[in-house]
């Protein structure tokens, strides 16, 4: 039984979203595992991994929507939290390789042997235990976001200034992780994983399970975001988004609200990264590139800023388009399309797909209702139905 706070006031689109994600999360792994290969309905393993990737991106998009769509914080560095979560998971996976690496060292990962590390750096200790790594997946991005947000929001860094310094943050991390002596594999990052919790990461069953887990995480993230934005806290967040100074003058401690939601969002991004890494099989510093974070923001913009379903949908749609176009003969034009998407969505579709759709539906409802009212008045039949 889900706690009341998570299921409260589930409207129709939210219910549909959860049902669809849960259905996909069940059906795709089952079809992949149970149906014979080559059958019409069988989903090949590479697609399972691809869809798993989309699910992780959807979680990242949700986390961005939570702060941008509902609190007006445009972070251009959310990819950093995603990558940090990914690195925490990658470190666990590296430790699981054990002596099966190229150099056969039972403790040190290959790149450390290669770089002549005498022993494991202190920050790699504990990552041989899954629970510790899982804790770090949430804690490290959360802590960074807390410190960063505490400094930034307290001194009222807002708007484009905040966007730029978040970008500087991820850029600094990018530079740091590129360094070989930073202890995270430098340019090549962490890869060549073997096992996760004793299961082979390459195996179909593991991939299917990871996909199902990603869908579950997506649903949970959705419910958490939904709980936040529909609560009283969420109303304050929206107030901050629309009129920060006014909210402050009303007596709310704006910086605490922002800090809470920013940290929560970073933790979610970290989880998304952690699920992403075993499915793609590599994590390297390019995940910190500022361009990635900005791209994630455009997913949200395409789907519909300020609508949770939209954010997740946008991530899947844009990434599907990316996969489709970059693998075909249209590959050289993908950047044109992505660029045009940025421009056109901000100019013509500021509410995104879902936002525009629901606005259109609402306006239609309103006209219908007005029509019905005027028709009713003409008929001389009493007042409109209060239940409507």
């Amino acid at each position: 039984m889900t706690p009341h706070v998570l299921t409260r006031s589930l409207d129709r689109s939210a219910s549909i979203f959860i049902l669809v994600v849960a259905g996909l999360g069940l059906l795709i792994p089952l079809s992949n595992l149970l149906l014979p290969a080559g059958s019409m309905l069988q989903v090949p393993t590479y697609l399972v991994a691809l869809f798993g990737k989309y699910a992780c991106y959807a979680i990242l998009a949700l986390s961005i929507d939570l702060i941008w769509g509902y609190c007006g914080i445009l972070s251009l560095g959310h990819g950093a939290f995603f990558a940090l979560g990914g690195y925490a998971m990658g470190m666990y996976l590296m430790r699981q390789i054990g002596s099966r690496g190229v150099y056969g060292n039972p403790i040190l990962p290959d790149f450390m042997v290669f770089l002549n590390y005498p022993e494991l750096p202190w920050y790699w200790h504990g990552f041989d235990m899954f629970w510790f790594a899982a804790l770090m997946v949430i804690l490290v991005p959360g802590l960074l976001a807390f410190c960063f947000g505490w400094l930034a929001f307290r001194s009222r860094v807002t708007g484009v200034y905040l966007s730029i310094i978040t970008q500087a943050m991820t850029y600094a991390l990018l530079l740091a992780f590129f360094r070989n002596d930073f202890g995270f594999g430098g340019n090549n990052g962490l890869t060549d994983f073997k096992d996760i919790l004793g299961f082979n990461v390459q195996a179909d069953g593991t991939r299917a399970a990871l996909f199902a887990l990603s869908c579950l995480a997506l649903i949970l993230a959705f419910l958490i975001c939904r709980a936040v934005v529909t609560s009283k806290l969420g109303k304050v967040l929206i107030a901050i988004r629309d009129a920060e100074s006014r909210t402050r003058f009303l007596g709310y401690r704006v910086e605490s609200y922002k800090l809470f939601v920013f940290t929560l969002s970073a933790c979610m991004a970290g989880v998304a990264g952690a699920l992403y890494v075993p499915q793609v099989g590599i994590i390297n510093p390019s995940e910190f590139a500022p361009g990635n974070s900005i791209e994630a923001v455009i997913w949200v913009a395409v789907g519909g800023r300020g609508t949770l379903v939209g954010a997740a949908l946008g991530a899947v749609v844009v990434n599907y388009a990316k996969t489709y176009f970059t693998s075909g003969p249209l590959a050289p034009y993908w950047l044109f399309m992505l660029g045009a998407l940025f421009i056109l969505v901000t100019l013509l579709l500021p509410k995104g797909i879902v936002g525009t759709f629901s606005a259109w539906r609402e306006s239609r409802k309103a006209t219908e209702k007005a029509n019905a009212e005027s028709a009713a008045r003409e008929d001389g039949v009493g007042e409109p139905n209060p239940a409507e």
Partner: protein
Amino acid sequence: MPPPSPHSCRGRIVSANFLDRLRAVLLAILLTAAFAVPALAGPFEDAIAKFANDDFSDTDEAIGAVAVSGNPLAFPIISALQEGRLSADPDTRKVFVTGSDGKIIDAATGAAVDKLPDNAAAVRLNNRLRRAVEAALGGLTLLSPDPAKRIAAAQSVFKSHEESALATIDSALAKETNKTAKAAFAEARAAILLYKSDATEIEKLEAIAVVKARGDQEAMALLTGLGSDVPPNVARAAASAIASIQSNLAMWSMVQNAWYGLSLGSVLLLAAIGLAITFGVMGVINMAHGEMVMLGAYTTFVVQEVIRTRYPGLFDYSLLIAVPLAFLVAGAIGVLIERGIIRFLYGRPLETLLATWGLSLVLQQAVRTMFGPTNREVGNPSWMSGAFELGQITITYNRLWILCFTLAVFVILLAMLRYTALGLEMRAVTQNRRMAASMGIATSRVDALTFGLGSGIAGIAGVALSQIDNVSPNLGQSYIIDSFMVVVFGGVGNLWGTLVGAFTLGIANKFLEPVAGAVLGKIAILVLIILFIQKRPRGLFALKGRAVEA
């Protein structure tokens, strides 16, 4: 030789003068022996034969004898020895020089030989001999008619401080007229005396003074190599000289860092100044600003291509042609962007940021499609290539020109803002957009022109950057984050903020680099800026007043 401190001790001066005279006499005798007696037979041939003994001490003697023989073959022989091209036949005791062009001559006579005898083997050297060879070569070129060669030879003697070169140095010093060469000889002589075991204390002290005056890394190496078996006075003088050279070197490395910092700062300023203007006036961050820089650089490339194929004589003026063109190209595109995209997004700075980012992707890809993804070559005109020495640092002309150019652009821009009607309107809109509009300023026209101006300056920046960086579609990307940092650090609405921000960041970066390494230095700067923003959320030079409360 400069006299020692005049009031110190009369006796010393007398003895120094006496020694000088004595040395002059000895020198005269030695020189007569070395140069007046031509190598007719005897010593030169005997010396050559010693190379065939395959014995290190014989080879040493042979080197010394050949070096002072004055024989025209001495230089080719010794340099062949140095490069392993000198071979000897132990049976016939003949020695051969294989020229670097493959021609073989008999070392004793200079007669051409068809091929080496079968049992001829290269004359071997050890480290001690290698030093002797270098010194001998140095001695041989010390008397070269070309002053540059003399100086180079003196430098090599300074490094090797080979005692055998002393006589030659003295004679060369005596007749030297070239000032630089004279100084080099004096330094070489000092280096020899410093290491000469039978030099007097006073000679050594003078030598230390000369070496100290030279004051570079090599002087320091020479002094530190002195060892402990020297008189205490000398050791003390050497220690104090080392300390003074060290502080001298530290000062020069500071100067060098400052210069690098200024140079980096000028590049940052050039890249950021246009961004600061548009951000200040319109409150929008133009993420495609870096691409304007790139377009400027590609304009330079196109201009140079046209000049290369059509008017090669104009190559030196290519940049002068490219600057206005780049301004026009980037400026026109800037106005188009403003009219086509940005004006629809007023009041939504974050959306503007996203839209211009998309635009930057499109522009990058467009340039990639048109010019290819690889680096294009942009040449330096002759007046921008090369370098000159200032004290102990090297300053390249292109960096110097870019610094001057940046400052010129800055001053022109400042004057424009201060004295033209557009500048006045821009400042008014920066301070209070609505008030300015109420006063009859056509703010949308100001916006378009401001955006065009900012982009045009970015284009100019591209011309300058094409001289020091690779011209590729990614050129703009590498500067955009740094430019943001400058604007955020310096604050908007005031060009001085950008100036101070750019040079502060440039210099801080270059001073951190030797301490922390290039990447860590950069990370440190980013972290410092993030922390700085906490203290001053609107940058160093923030506009004050209610107008900026958005």
